[in-house]
């Protein structure tokens, strides 16, 4: 080791200083959003912006939460977003769990084909699919319905959810299942008493991923939904952009309300997201 080498302290200061700088750059835009949300209008449009609100106010949050935005209230948008996200989570987790079990536990023909298909569909430009899916949902009478939108979100969430979950299933030792089988448990019982509890953490991670997929989605909701009472939160944000200037206070308050749960959830599972996304790429 080179303890005590001259310049080591300087080096450490530079490194940590750069680290703090990176932290600041990464966090600043989100901080600025939240800070603006608490500023009265006079401070928002002040010619010399201040980092923190001098005279913090909840008026923008009050306007977003209790005022009527367009024809419906924030809570209706919230309910729509939450409902879509929950349905997406439930169905895609179920599909992902069964498919991941198949992939991690069986060797079968078309297994590799199936895995390649999962990669390919994650690369498809969803923005391009909005055109045919619009027509498909229209002919199924599912346009302008949260159910139709949930269907689309499930399709988007499932491939990555399987990709993420298969590692968790594979990590459960097969001997445990075999032992349960020898003890006379049937496959279904083995699944619920042995496999399910052990993959639960993975299931939480994929659920949060599916939740975020549905919660954040913008363009499909924007295109497919017509009635204001069906709009989701990301669409609601559009209402504050006006021809006569943008209402930045309410926009930032609403954005903060939309963003904070996502960040909180994401920080819970980020480690697993990383390993899911880059699975294997690191093995060298």
């Amino acid at each position, binding site marked *: 080791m080179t303890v005590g080498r001259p310049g080591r302290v300087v080096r450490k200061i530079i490194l940590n200083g750069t680290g703090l700088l990176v932290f600041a750059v990464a966090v600043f*835009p989100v901080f600025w959003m939240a800070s603006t949300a608490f500023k009265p209008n006079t401070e928002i449009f002040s010619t010399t912006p201040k980092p923190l609100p001098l005279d913090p106010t909840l008026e923008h949050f009050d306007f977003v939460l209790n005022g009527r935005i367009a024809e419906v209230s924030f809570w209706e948008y919230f309910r729509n977003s939450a409902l879509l996200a929950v349905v997406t989570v439930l169905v895609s987790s179920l599909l992902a769990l069964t498919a991941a079990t198949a992939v991690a536990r069986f060797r079968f023909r078309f297994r590799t084909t199936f895995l*390649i298909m999962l990669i390919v569909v994650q690369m498809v430009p969803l*923005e391009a699919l*909005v055109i045919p899916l619009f027509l498909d949902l229209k002919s199924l009478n599912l346009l302008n319905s949260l159910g139709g939108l949930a*269907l689309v979100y499930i399709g988007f969430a499932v491939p990555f959810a399987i990709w993420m979950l298969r590692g968790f299933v594979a990590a459960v030792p097969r001997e445990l299942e075999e032992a349960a089988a020898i003890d006379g448990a049937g496959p279904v019982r083995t699944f619920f008493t042995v496999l399910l509890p052990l993959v639960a953490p993975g299931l939480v991670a994929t659920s949060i991923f599916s939740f975020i997929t549905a919660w954040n989605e913008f363009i499909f909701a924007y295109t497919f939904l017509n009635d204001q009472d069906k709009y989701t939160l990301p669409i609601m944000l559009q209402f504050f952009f006006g021809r006569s200037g943008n209402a930045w206070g309410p926009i930032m308050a609403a954005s903060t309300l939309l963003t904070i749960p996502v960040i909180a959830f994401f920080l819970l599972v980020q480690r697993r997201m990383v390993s899911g996304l880059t699975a294997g790429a690191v093995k060298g």
Partner: protein
Amino acid sequence: MLDTAPAVRRPPGRRSSGRARPRRRPHLGPYLLIAPTVAVIAVLMFWPMIQIGIMSFQKVGNRQLRGEPAEQVGTENFEKILGDPFFWQTVKHTVLFAVVAVSLTLVVGTLVGLLLNKLGKRMSAFVAGGVMIAWATPPVTAAIIFSWLFGSTGGLVNWALDLLPDALVGGGWSDHNWFATPLSTYTVLTVCVVWQACPFIAVSVLAGLKSIPGELYEAARVDGSGPWRTFWSITYPMLKPIFLVLLVMSIIWDFKVFTQLFIMSGMANRDAFNLSLYAYSEAFGSLNPKLGMGSAIALVLTMILLVVTALYVRVMVRQGETE
């Protein structure tokens, strides 16, 4: 469900530990397990992709939306777009943006990853946590925040640029409209997208760095190798597979960037369109929807991305990721 049946069926007297784990017999089980997923993906992804192909040779407008059969127009849609300078302008925007954004993301992301690896444990976790916040921000919110930071009234960036000496950045920033020209719009878009994408590169590189045995660096130091040399002869070759994957993923993400540009610039600002915004606007942007034209443009984008995806799949298969 878990294919434990063979173990149960085995006669009690037979030693199950005496031979290798029985090769799992292919039977209906796994196919039943993946069937619902395959159905969902087929209906929601593959069929629409085929539809894009079909519709790009059709005229699909208001009359077709009312239920009339689609009109076959042969290659007319493609002739129209390929002969239109505006289409090539959107291609230019798409490609140039991807090149700049991908390069910046990879370089900055890698530098941050290297930094995270050098920092002490607690500092590293602290910085990584902050960086994650940028990654976790919903694209819609990110676009809104950057529109606000670069806003012409009350925007922080203009204020800061105005404070800097005129000799450095020029004057007259106080009410500069960043969304007036495509170049400056894409500058803001690039900052926004790079800010959001770097963290993923950084944590992936960090994960890769952690997997490199420390002895290699030990040896390099003994041999008197400097940091630059060490990076190119140890770190880079060891991380090459992960760089390849990150490169391909970044290309794919940045080629199809939509939401952020849509929010920053909107559909009215045609000058700043990229391919996906152009396709969307043809299909839904006016009272006279041209879904066939939109599909033709979307098909061009999809084809480009499929080529990139093929590269990605090759890398993944070669690394045994699908085994």
